[in-house]
């Protein structure tokens, strides 16, 4: 990859509070340490400047709660990062003030992804989220006022106790704000989290009812004119998340910060999650501790299949050569779940609702068993 990665991810792990269901790499508080962390990020980026393309297409600041980062440090970071056509920052509603919105705007941010989750206060309480619906709406308008014309809202469905009516309400509230983009995720209760411990029984009880929630989400948002362009993502025309498209298209990306993953030129590495180890190494001029794996052509093609089938556009067959189980493909086609069109492979509308299972079926056990 002589050109290098054209997508850059920056991880900002700090949060005011760790939500019970969260399994991201996060650190609560530690405001005094934000400066040192930003220094380390920039040092790591400096180390990796060779793997980054000259023209970076997208930049994504994820967390954690990037907007919880000390404003001065956040401004310093934004100023030091390379320019890009799309610069996204994840934000929690309660952190979005007119000042912060302006800071982001000045810092070159083009897109904000707002973690709404729900508009029902009692459901937000279960998720341990601080922002109520009014705060969410205020944050949204602060961003609009600051000039942001590309805002995404994150919603979660399948919250313990959430009825279909609750979900309809959330979707209607979200649509009413008129965001350019929406991400809707089923709540994943990871085993071992505090959340699963507290709500596992209720989640198991409502598992059957929740089957229809995904359909409700898709029907409602598509009905409101959004494009269901990825399993969990919806957008207005021309507003796909370009950074995430890079992942789904199998393009190289560089990730910096604790726990961040990079995939460049057939090599994938993940920084360890320990803050001390990360800061220490970079302060001494060393690379942070990492785990590495090779992503050979065979694995790359399987991943391309897995990620590509999440999209509403076909994956070109040439990019998944050796990864598709031909027999399974015939079976899936017969069942009306997958189809070949335009020299590529895609899931049908019904196939997309069963995308995980269909993809598992389609994945060849080894290239030898693949027939296309």
């Amino acid at each position, binding site marked *: 990859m002589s050109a290098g990665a054209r997508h850059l991810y920056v991880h900002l792990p700090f949060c005011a509070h760790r939500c019970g269901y969260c399994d991201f790499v996060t650190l609560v508080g530690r405001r005094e340490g934000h400066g040192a962390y930003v220094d380390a990020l920039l040092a790591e980026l400096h180390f990796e400047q060779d793997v980054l393309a000259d023209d970076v297409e997208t930049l994504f600041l994820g967390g954690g709660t990037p907007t919880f980062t000390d404003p001065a440090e956040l401004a310093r970071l934004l100023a030091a990062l390379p320019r890009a056509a799309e610069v996204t920052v994840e934000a929690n509603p309660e952190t979005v003030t007119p000042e912060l919105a302006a800071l982001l705007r000045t810092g070159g941010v083009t897109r904000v992804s707002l973690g709404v989750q729900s508009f029902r206060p009692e459901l937000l309480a279960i998720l341990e989220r601080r922002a109520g619906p009014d705060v969410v709406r205020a944050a949204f308008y602060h961003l609009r006022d600051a000039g942001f014309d590309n805002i995404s809202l994150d919603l979660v469905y399948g919250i313990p106790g959430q009825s279909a009516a609750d979900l309809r309400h959330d979707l209607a509230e979200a649509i009413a704000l008129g965001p350019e983009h929406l991400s809707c995720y089923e709540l994943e209760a990871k085993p071992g989290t505090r959340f699963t411990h507290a709500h596992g029984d209720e989640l198991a009880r409502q598992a059957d009812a929740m*089957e229809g929630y*995904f359909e409700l989400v898709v029907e409602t948002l598509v009905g409101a004119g959004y494009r269901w362009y990825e399993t969990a993502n919806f957008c207005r025309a021309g507003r796909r998340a370009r950074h995430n498209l890079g992942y789904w298209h199998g393009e190289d990306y560089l990730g910096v910060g604790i726990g961040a*993953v990079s995939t460049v030129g057939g090599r994938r590495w*993940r920084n360890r999650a320990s803050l001390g180890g990360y800061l220490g190494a970079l302060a001494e001029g060393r690379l942070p501790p990492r785990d590495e*794996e090779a992503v050979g052509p065979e694995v790359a093609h399987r*991943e391309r299949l*897995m990620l590509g089938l999440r999209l509403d556009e076909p994956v070109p067959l040439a990019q998944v050569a050796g990864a598709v189980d031909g027999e399974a493909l015939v079976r899936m086609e017969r069942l009306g779940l997958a189809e070949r069109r335009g020299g590529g492979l895609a899931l049908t509308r019904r196939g997309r609702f069963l995308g995980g*299972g*269909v993809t598992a079926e389609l994945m060849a056990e080894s290239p030898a068993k693949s027939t296309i």
Partner: protein
Amino acid sequence: MSRLDPIRNFSIVAHIDHGKSTLADRILEVTQTLSRREMREQVLDSMELERERGITIKAQAVRVLWRGRQLNLIDTPGHVDFTYEVSRALQACEGALLVVDAAQGIEAQTLANAYLAIENDLEIVPVVNKIDLPQADPDAAAGEVAQLVGESPDRVLRISAKTGEGVEAVLDAIVERIPPPEGDPEAPPRALVFDSSYDQYRGVVAFVRMVDGRFTTRQPLRALAAGTLFEAEELGFFSPERSPTPTLEAGEVGYVVTGLKDVSRLRVGDTLTAQARPAAEPLPGYKDVKPTVFAGLFPTDSDEYPDLRDALEKLKLNDASLFYEPETSQALGFGFRCGFLGLLHMEIVRERLEREFDLDLLVTAPNVAYRVLTKANEELEVHNPSDMPREVELVEEPYIRATTIVPKDYVGSVMELSNERRGRFHHLEYLSEERVLLVFDLPLAEIVYDYYDQLKSRTRGYASFDYDVIGFEPGDLVRVDVLLAGDPVDALSLIVHRDGAYARGRALVDRLREEIPRQMFDVPIQAAIGSRIIARETIRARRKDVLAKCYGGDITRKRKLLERQKKGKKRMKQVGSVEVPQEAFLAVLNLDGERK
């Protein structure tokens, strides 16, 4: 006094747990064949499985010396499925100890074995065991046994095999009451094969009772029924270790090392004679035992098919009554249709395959053998429901005569169960004021499903049960097929009586709906007799199966998740387009649990 006078050949017959093995141990100890220190508990039960289940599967013979006499104890299998083996072991004896638990009294198996012994003209020495138990009622038990064998109650020995009390008297009674063997030491040799086992170094080892004449080491021998020729590589007896001797004489019990590599060439009940001076007539009673219960055995992982084949071959070396032939099921792939002497035999074979050969097996619902007359007037024997022609002139099924002994309060329950299972009342008899013997004739097919469990639960475990196959009778039987998404599933076909077909079809369909996970499409499940659908359910298609999110940080993990999911599917059986978990095939086995 004849030359055979010093010899006594005897067996011990008893119901499970009435102390047969303990008495055998004590006999070895009292005769100083084995010291207490040397003795493992229950030496005669050599297989691990037997030890665990407290039953004896393979008969063996041990020689002990008592007051100048040679006593040969021939151990018999303790279960109904091995009636033929028991009868051959008994044929090798002149007498039998009939052991009854002083607290339990006579049980169904006691009766079955006592009748077998009486049929074989054995001198029966009745023994009441466990007189040391606090709840023992030796007088009642002795009364029952005395009545059964037509003896005076004073002639019933009262012992405790556990403490050793009375065991010497038992040995004396063996010498006094059981006659010495009769036989002509000078006639052409004849020996009854009453059991065999397979030794991986020495081949088939036959356990024999010399009836006439004598065998010498290296003598060329011949099995009369099978026509097999071989040389007696070694002769000997067990005491309880293998003790080689140069000859086996008329009246004696011992073993012959044959060097044969195939146990089926030397069947239990066959007669051995000398090639050079063959006997004109074989000993009576040889019978080619036929399996009565059949089931398909399939490896869970189809790659293990060759291992299963090898394992069955090895098991067959030690178990001539095991029958198997390759079977190909559309649903389950390659496996074997196996025939067993009964349900316990099936259970034992299955456990040995899983335990000793480390195989993961899927066993289909057992069925009996059917005799079929087709419309074209052809006679068939059907071992597999999916082989049953849909149009038949006549079907006959095996019937059993079932003996149940219960406390009198449970007579109604047993009657009710037997009626539900198409039983015909034969007779009822009071063994004592408290205990009743009930005899019913039933189709064997009706006890192949959970009859024992039902009997046990409805009599609170008090019933004892035994049966004999008495013949074939015509029945109004139909074949019920199961269709998944329109495709018939051969492994789930059943043959049932027409009256019960609807209920069985319904139960099967309901059960499958629970067992088969939802698929990516609707799956109709139907039960049908011929082209007539008698029950139907639908497993609704799944509506959602997606990985919630997938970004740069978790691609590796999500890929591995899908790869595992794909591997997991390999363990499912693909039936047409439907993925069926292996457990679903066992659903038919458990239907009756819900029938009541």
